[in-house]
Structure formats: structure tokens, C-alpha cells
């Protein structure tokens, strides 16, 4: 069940990019490393809507996105990227392709962990090469996320899959868990790649390209764990103050986030429950068809009818299985990602509030002349800029996020509806052909009776 076990050096968690032997572990599905694959995967996951109208909407929105002054304009959203893949006359707009595949298990004396292979293909000048292959573990992803949040506190950073899933998980590394996580990690990196600002983040580049030891040493350079913890404590305290003076539009945003979070969590639960019910239905159906075969053994005159009924039931059973897998491929991951997004959004709001709180506390200090006030006006000026940038960044990213959310949700549910339609159509065809064969038989029999 687990991937190939290799003893590796105690420190390093990754394999050198060039020398990866990459024997795929038994259980998982390896991804081909071709350049089209990341696009294809994106296509599969988001399940394209071929309506041409959607194209125009996206490109309009792209131009509307008013980016901050410190980030160059890159009119890409995940969906416009997909549309570009479909219409080959514009291949240049996407220049960074990332795939995450080949989970492998590593055993050391201290721990066991999984690494994922990350293949990057790019035509960007700032990259030293056009192709990179590295191995990263979950911790590395966590690090990257932390760095992005640090660098862009009020941008909506894509969510990472959870560290652990408590319920029902006996072993950390069972196949389904690994596969779900792999897909989510793939999504995570691609969302960053599609983000107009984040895609140019230096840590992101290092994450995609650095050798294992390079990454380790780079990680050590940042502010240490303790200082980060200290920041967190301060952050919590000051964000409370930030809430009081929150501008109206951010109040609205916050309300939306709270309600959205509630609803998406419910939808996540409902969707998981539907999957579970469908699975249990499938399990019972598997037994149902064979009983008719058993019965046919004792009924000479009904053998054919009973066998045909058994066949129909079995076909419907297979159709149910397909419906289930459609649900777990398309709907469940999308809904779950937005559950994580909603948590992320609340974090973003807090950070925004915190930045504002910094400003507010300095303003307060000036007003009440609590401390030495000489340097304050200059500090306040800087902080005012900081607040304005933060707010603008969030506003713009918020619009972009909302648009993506609507599209993703719409696609996911449309796909679910499509799966159900297909399921019922298959079952209908099965039973209708049974009925026709019975009526034909009957006609044959009655015509035989006639002399």
C-alpha cells in the first residue's frame, strides 16, 4: 500500500531533481510529466463549460482588475488560463505549468513522511531553466504558505489541504488520503501560479526550483519560529482594536465571509453525506441483482426474464458507481477547498484589521500625547500608506476571489447535475431495453400460438 520505501539521509527530505528514479508506488496514479498535463488536470478538475460566453466575461473582468501599484498586471485567472489552452491562438499568456505527482514514502530513524514530485515548466526569463523537477513534503508547502502570508498579509492566499483529517483516519498514509492531498497540493500551487501577484513571489520560485539542501538553508534565513509566535500574540490583541474602526465595505465583506463560511461548511457536510449514502446504496445494490439469478435456477419458465432483470440491476449498479466517483472527483474537492478558503478569508480579515490597528494606535498616541511625539507624524504617514495598500490589495483580490468562487461553485454543481442526468439516462436505457425485449418476446409467443 505505501510507496516504495527508501532509507534516506536523516536531514534531507527530498531527492535530487535530476536523478529521480521515480518508480511509482503501487497504489497511486502517477501523472505524466508532459507540459500539457497540468492544463489537462486543471481541465479535469474544473470540468469545462464550453459556453463561449464565459470567455468574454472573464477577459472583461481581467481588465477590470485594478492591481496594486507594486505588482505588474497579469491578466490571468484559472479559467482564462483554461480557455487559453482550448484556443491555441493564444498560447503565450500562460507561461508557468506545474504538476504535483508521484507521492513516495520515506523512512528515517525519526519519522516517516511522504514527498511529492513537483515538475515545473516555464518560459519565464527570471527562471534559470525551462524545466525543473523537485521533491517536496507537506512541511515545505506549509513553509511556502507562511512566507506568502507574511509577504502579502491582505491577499487571499490559496488554502492548503488539512494537516490531519481526524475522523475515520486510522493510518496517516492510506491511499485515498494521499491522493486527495496530492490533488489539493496540485491545486494550491496552480492557484498561486495563476495569481497576478503571488506568481512572482521569490519564495514561490525557490520552492519550485531549489534543490533540497538549498531550500533548507533558505528556510533558515527567515524570522525564527519564536519571533513569529510573538507576532501572532500581538496580532490577536491588536486585531480586536482594528475591528472597531473597520470601514463599511470591509464590514460587508466580513459579514459575507461569515455567512459564506457557515453555508459552505454545511454544503460540505451535505455533500460528504450524499457520497456516503450513495456508497451504502451501491453496496446493497451489489447484492440485489444476484438474487434474481439464484431464483432463475428454480424457475424454468422465468429464467430469461429473471436473468434479464438481474442484468439491468447490475448495470444500474455500475452507473451508480460512476456517479459516485464523479461526485468525489468534481464536487467534493471543490466544496472542501472553499471550506478551507473561508477559514483563510477570516485570517485575511484579521490581518487587515491588525494593520489598521497599528495605525489607529499610533494615531491615538499622537492625540493623547502619550509618548514622545516627534517621530509620530512620519510613522503615521508610513502606516497610512501601508493601510491604504493593504486595503486596496484586499479589495482587488476579493473581487477576483469572488468571481472565481462563483465560477468554481457553478461548475462543480453543474457537473454534479450532469452526472446525475447521465446516471438516470443510463438506467432508463437499460430498463427500457428490457421492457422492449419482453414485449417483443410476448409478440413472438402470441404469433407462435396462432396456427
Amino acid at each position, binding site marked *: 500500500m505505501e510507496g516504495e520505501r527508501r532509507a534516506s539521509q536523516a536531514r534531507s527530505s527530498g531527492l535530487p531533481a535530476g536523478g529521480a528514479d521515480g518508480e511509482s508506488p503501487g497504489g497511486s496514479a502517477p501523472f505524466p510529466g508532459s507540459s500539457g498535463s497540468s492544463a489537462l488536470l486543471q481541465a479535469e478538475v474544473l470540468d469545462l463549460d464550453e459556453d463561449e460566453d464565459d470567455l468574454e466575461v472573464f477577459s472583461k473582468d481581467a481588465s477590470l482588475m485594478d492591481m496594486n501599484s507594486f505588482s505588474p498586471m497579469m491578466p490571468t485567472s484559472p479559467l482564462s488560463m483554461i480557455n487559453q489552452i482550448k484556443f491555441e491562438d493564444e498560447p503565450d499568456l500562460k507561461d508557468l505549468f506545474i504538476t504535483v505527482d508521484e507521492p513516495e514514502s520515506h523512512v528515517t530513524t525519526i519519522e516517516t513522511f511522504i514527498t511529492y514530485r513537483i515538475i515545473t515548466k516555464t518560459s519565464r526569463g527570471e527562471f534559470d531553466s525551462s524545466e525543473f523537477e523537485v521533491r517536496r513534503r507537506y512541511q515545505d508547502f506549509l513553509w511556502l504558505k507562511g512566507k506568502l502570508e507574511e509577504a502579502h498579509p491582505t491577499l487571499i492566499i490559496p488554502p492548503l489541504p488539512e494537516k490531519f483529517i481526524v475522523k475515520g483516519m486510522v493510518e496517516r498514509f492510506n491511499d485515498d488520503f494521499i491522493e486527495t492531498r496530492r490533488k489539493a497540493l496540485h491545486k494550491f500551487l496552480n492557484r498561486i501560479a495563476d495569481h497576478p501577484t503571488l506568481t512572482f513571489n521569490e519564495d514561490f520560485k525557490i520552492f519550485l526550483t531549489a534543490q533540497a539542501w538549498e531550500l533548507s538553508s533558505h528556510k533558515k534565513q527567515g524570522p525564527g519560529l519564536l519571533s513569529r509566535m510573538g507576532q501572532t500574540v500581538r496580532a490577536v490583541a491588536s486585531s480586536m482594536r482594528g475591528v472597531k474602526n473597520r470601514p463599511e465595505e470591509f464590514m460587508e465583506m466580513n459579514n459575507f465571509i461569515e455567512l459564506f463560511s457557515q453555508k459552505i461548511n454545511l454544503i460540505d457536510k451535505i455533500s460528504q453525506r450524499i457520497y456516503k449514502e450513495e456508497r451504502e446504496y451501491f453496496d*446493497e445494490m451489489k447484492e440485489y441483482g444476484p438474487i434474481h439469478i439464484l431464483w432463475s435456477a428454480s424457475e424454468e419458465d422465468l429464467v430469461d426474464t429473471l436473468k434479464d432483470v438481474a442484468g439491468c440491476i447490475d448495470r444500474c449498479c455500475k452507473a451508480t458507481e460512476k456517479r459516485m466517483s464523479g461526485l468525489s472527483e468534481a464536487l467534493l474537492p471543490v466544496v472542501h477547498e472553499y471550506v478551507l478558503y473561508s477559514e483563510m478569508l477570516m485570517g485575511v480579515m484579521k490581518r487587515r484589521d491588525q494593520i489598521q490597528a497599528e495605525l489607529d494606535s499610533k494615531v491615538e498616541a499622537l492625540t493623547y500625547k502619550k509618548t514622545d511625539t516627534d517621530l509620530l507624524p512620519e510613522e503615521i504617514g508610513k502606516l497610512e500608506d501601508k493601510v491604504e495598500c493593504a486595503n486596496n490589495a484586499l479589495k482587488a483580490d476579493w473581487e477576483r476571489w469572488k468571481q472565481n468562487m462563483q465560477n468554481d461553485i457553478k461548475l462543480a454543481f453543474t457537473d454534479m447535475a450532469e452526472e446525475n442526468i447521465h446516471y438516470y439516462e443510463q438506467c432508463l436505457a437499460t430498463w427500457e431495453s428490457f421492457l422492449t425485449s*419482453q414485449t417483443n418476446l410476448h409478440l413472438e409467443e402470441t404469433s407462435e400460438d396462432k396456427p
Partner: protein
Amino acid sequence: MEQAPRDPERQLQPAPLEPLGCPDAGLGAAIGKEAAGAGEEDSGVDTMTHNNFWLKKIEISVSEAEKRTGRNAMNMQETYTAYLIETRSVEHTDGQSVLTDSLWRRYSEFELLRNYLLVYYPHIVVPPLPEKRAEFVWHKLSADNMDPDFVERRRIGLENFLLRIASHPILCRDKIFYLFLTQEGNWKETVNETGFQLKADSRLKALNATFRVKNPDKRFTDLKHYSDELQSVISHLLRVRARVADRLYGVYKVHGNYGRVFSEWSAIEKEMGDGLQSAGHHMDVYASSIDDILEDEEHYADQLKEYLFYAEALRAVCRKHELMQYDLEMAAQDLASKKQQCEELATGTVRTFSLKGMTTKLFGQETPEQREARIKVLEEQINEGEQQLKSKNLEGREFVKNAWADIERFKEQKNRDLKEALISYAVMQISMCKKGIQVWTNAKECFSKM
């Protein structure tokens, strides 16, 4: 007034076969309700041949069910359901039907009727009653006998029972059956007066026979095996069907939750709001559609259940055969032993053990006169025994002939009915699929407009 789904075939028809055993009861000239006096003084089996009765076709329906309270045998308050049975005669010429009789019966009276028929027509596969208590229930369905859906399905089952009897060439002519349909008061007393309970074979005797019979008819042995298999496979099928229904219910109903959440979510969404709201409505429709779907499936389950219970009726005929065969074998054995005894007495050799022989040895030889007397008694008994054996043999052969005829009739009926049931199941599935396609197509449209 509802007709049973399979009505047209089930109207009373003139009987093609002769009634079993007893001499013809005499053609009564009575018409319609005046059947009471028609010649029923015969060897104990109440049959009725009724000239004018057969000129008109009869329609029977169990049209209503009513909850009632009353006092039972122990003078305690009880609640039960009563069923209205209506009989109509149809004029041959213009097809109009006229209500001729209508009365109320409860389940226990149906049971009484059936038990009577079992005793007096042991060679017939007697139609079964619908179940007394709900079994093979999937958990959302009530197992309560007072549940309106259960009562409704039972009403249909009871009507089916009566129609089956009415369309049976032999059973339909039974007087007690006729009175069941026409004589409300006093019917129970009338049935009990036939003394049928006394005539019933004891279960113990029947069980005994099963194990001890030496030469059973192979056809009946095979039939018994068949009925066991039928019972076992249909039970299994019904159990799994109930579990599948349960799961299906779960799948549909959970989708209903989407409706509520979508509706709440739509309140905060400007662009997606309408799409979400209307999609949610379709999810509600989807979730509630399962109730009717599964109710229809219950009717299918009832059709299968009837044949589950028919298996028991088949076994009853087999048991009767075994009993008769056992009786026959015992009689033959008894006769053989008496003959031997007689022979020994005549020739003086003692080979068989007899009490008389022993006492003779112990207490002294008997006189030639005594011996002659004994031989004479034995010879009479032997004569009687031979007569009895002859008539038992005849009875046995008659039984086998008639039973087998009815079994053939039953087999054809079963094949027809089961095939029809399976086809109706397919029809139900098709309808469910069509509904599903419609709802999801609507939902998809709403989603794509979001």
C-alpha cells in the same frame, strides 16, 4: 369504489371441473340472495351450483377500510379495522353493474374463511391472505398495523384474495364463500357449525407422516423442495429490496438539505442568488419524490409476498398427500399383519407376536371353538380392511389427480403473475429515471444560470 388492479380476469366464471368427492348437490333454482336454501344437505362439503348465479358475472371489491373499536372476547376494548366488501352483478347485455351486496368484515373473519377452505379443499392450492403484520419493512415505513398506508395495502391484498377465490374454478362455488360475501350476521356461527375445526388434521399427525412415509410420490417431494426454494429466495429478495429502498431513501432525502442551505446562501449572493434559490427548489422536489416512488415499490413487494405465502399453500397440499399416503401405508401394513395372524391361527404356526398368543402360552391353550371364533373375527376385519384399503387407494388417486390439476393451474398463474410483476417493476424504474432526469435537468439549468 376502486377495483383491484387486475380485475377483468377475476370475475366469477362457471366451473369447468366437477366438485370433489361428494355427489352433486343438486341444482338449486334460487337466484341472487336467495341461495340460503339451496341443497346443501350432503356429505359435509358445502358446495353450491346455482344456475342463474352463473348467468351474471360478479364483481367483488374491498372498497373501504374503517377503524373501529369494540369489545373482544374477554370484554376488553380493542381497536381493529373493518373492510367493506361490495358485490356487484354485471348484466351481460349492457355491462352495467348493480350493487347486490355490501357488508363489513374484519381480518380475523378472512382468516376463518381461509382455514375453512384449507380443511375442505386440501387438494387445492388455497390463495393466501396478505400478511397479518408488516414484515420486510424498511425503516422509514411504519410497522404499525394501524398505519394508513399499511391498511390501504392490506385492503388491496384482501380484495386480491377474494378475487383469486372467485376466479378459482372450484373454490368459487363454495357456499361458505358465497355467504361470506352476502351474509353479514351469523356467518361465523355458520362456518363453525360445519365443524371444520374437528375435521382438520392434527399438526402432530402431519409431522409424523412427513418422517415416516415410505413411498411418497416423487412429484410431491419435488414440489415440496420447490416451495422451500421459492420461499427462501423470495424472502431473501424482499429483505435486500427493503435495504435497498432504505438506502435510496437516504440518498434522496439528503439532497433536500441542499434546498434549505442554497436558499439561505442566496440571500447574500447578488449574481448567484436567483440560480441558487431555484436550484434549491428543485433539490426539494427531488427529495420529496422518493416517497411516491417507494410507495409504488411496496405494491411490487406485495405481489412478491403473495407468492411467498403461496409457497406455504403448496406445502399444505404436499402435507395432505403425505398424510394420505401414510394413512394408506399404515392401513396396508395393518391389513398385512392381520392376514398373517389369520394364516398362523389357521395353520397353527406362530410366527408373529400377539398378545393372545402370549397369554395362550402362559395360561393354557385355547379351545378349537375359541380359535375358530377368532379366525372368523379376523376374517371379517380383513374383509373390512380390504374394502377400506381399496377406497383409500381410490381416494388417494383422486386426490393426486385433482391436486395435480390444480397445481398445474397454479403454475401457469404463477408464471403469468410473476412475469407481470417483474415487468411492472421495470416500468416503475423507468418512471423513476424519467423523474430524475427531469429534476436534474431543471437543476442543471438553474446552476448554469448562476
